[in-house]
């Protein structure tokens, strides 16, 4: 059961959040410029790393904010948390 530090509300129980999967997958500015395979890459292909992953969470049952979390997918340790639009912190411990 994760304890997720919302950038606004502080540490709250996982049950208040929803995970939105891999972060930083920007919507292509011009979808028509992509072929089907490139579009599929945006739509479906995921890095799914074993280890540190940057992902999006929403504090659905709290402040309602989306934010980014850098989390280890093996230990579940949360390495850093940063707001939407902020760059990921470099070299998180």
């Amino acid at each position, binding site marked *: *059961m*994760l304890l997720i530090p919302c950038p606004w509300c502080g540490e709250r129980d*996982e*049950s208040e959040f*929803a*995970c939105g*999967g*891999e972060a930083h997958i920007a919507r292509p500015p011009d979808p028509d410029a992509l072929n*089907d*395979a490139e*579009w*599929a*890459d945006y*739509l*479906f*292909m*995921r*890095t*799914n*790393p*074993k280890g540190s*992953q940057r*992902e999006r969470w929403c504090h659905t049952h709290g402040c309602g904010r989306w934010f980014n979390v850098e*989390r280890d*997918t*093996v*230990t*579940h340790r949360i390495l850093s948390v940063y707001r939407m639009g902020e760059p990921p912190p470099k070299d998180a411990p």
Partner: protein
Amino acid sequence: MTSPRYSIFSLARNALGYHRSWSRAWRSPEPQPSYDVVIVGGGGHGLATAYYLAREHDAGSIAVLEKGWLGGGNTGRNTTIIRSNYLWDESAHLYEKSLKLYEGLSRELNFNIMLSQRGVLNLAHNEHDLKELSRRVRAIRLNGIDSEVLDPAGVKAEVPIVNTSPDVRYPILGASIQRRGGIARHDAVAWGFARAADARGVDIVQNCEVTGIDVSGGRVTGLRTSRGRIAANKVGLVAAGHSSVLAAMAGLRLPIESHTLQAMVSEPIKPILHGVVMSNAVHVYVSQSDKGELVIGAGMDGYNSYSQRGSFQIVEGQMGALVELFPIFSRLRMLRQWGGIVDVCPDASPIVGKTPVDGLYINCGWGTGGFKATPGSGWAFAHTIAQDRPHALNAPFALERFASGALIDEHGAAAVAH
């Protein structure tokens, strides 16, 4: 290399010698420097692939590389439900092929996998469920697969201990049942395939982790492993939860996320539940093993994970649902809970076929429901590897479907993990 046949007679004969002369079920060979085909992943699917390659195709030398102990992935930690009542034709045909193979598997492998065709019920709790169920059952039957609709009284007759009272939060309005569905002993499926593949000359190498895939000129040439480099003409990746990690070694991206799927068993009790009961709406499924434990599963954890550990809230939801359906289970106790790493595709259907790299094949994305597919998946994948083209059964499950959009959306079938 032939291991002795198992039978009541060999058992009795060995008993006289205090079981001191049983030979190994499979060898523990050193990996050779090169093979014609290497299968990565010693789960049920990988072992079945190797077995059918050796048995039905002229594929040359074959090895299965397993990073841990064979069967230790999802094969060794699933809730063992087997059925073929899938909605879309493509799925129905593949899973039905698998069920048919299962029906003859103990004999085929000379290893009792304890297939128990005790019937699988899917419950409906609202009008929408009922409509879905009707659609599904009709499609399944027209595909020649057994399936029936039960009303609440019929559900009660099948499973007398289930609560069919209309006064509960989500009453049971009906169910579908596939009587040929059931459960099997999961470990035995892995061990039986391993033993039979070994007997046909397949090298099964445990504690051998693949750490790199060598590709040159768009063709796979070999693997780097924790036990050295192994050259290979063809490589089949069958690593379930770790598919993305392996694919990345060959520079491929997959439409896959790895999630924890949890399960648990109760303490063993005397037989009380005969069939397998699943409910999508309240999110739980349960059967009773031959040893007496209730084997119970529910939905996945919501975040990516390679940890085989899950969140307790899933277990709480699962127990609420279970006790609602079976009030008499309330005082039974959870004995052990665990998790597996399932690889889920956006359409809840697997990927079985070729990759953009020549000689590299992939079999993954079975997500929460691939145990039932083990023999069928291995059979079709062996064909794909041997012939370098998919069999008609797995052709629709190619990786290309994500670009074309021809997805096979089985979320309805897999809304609850099973």
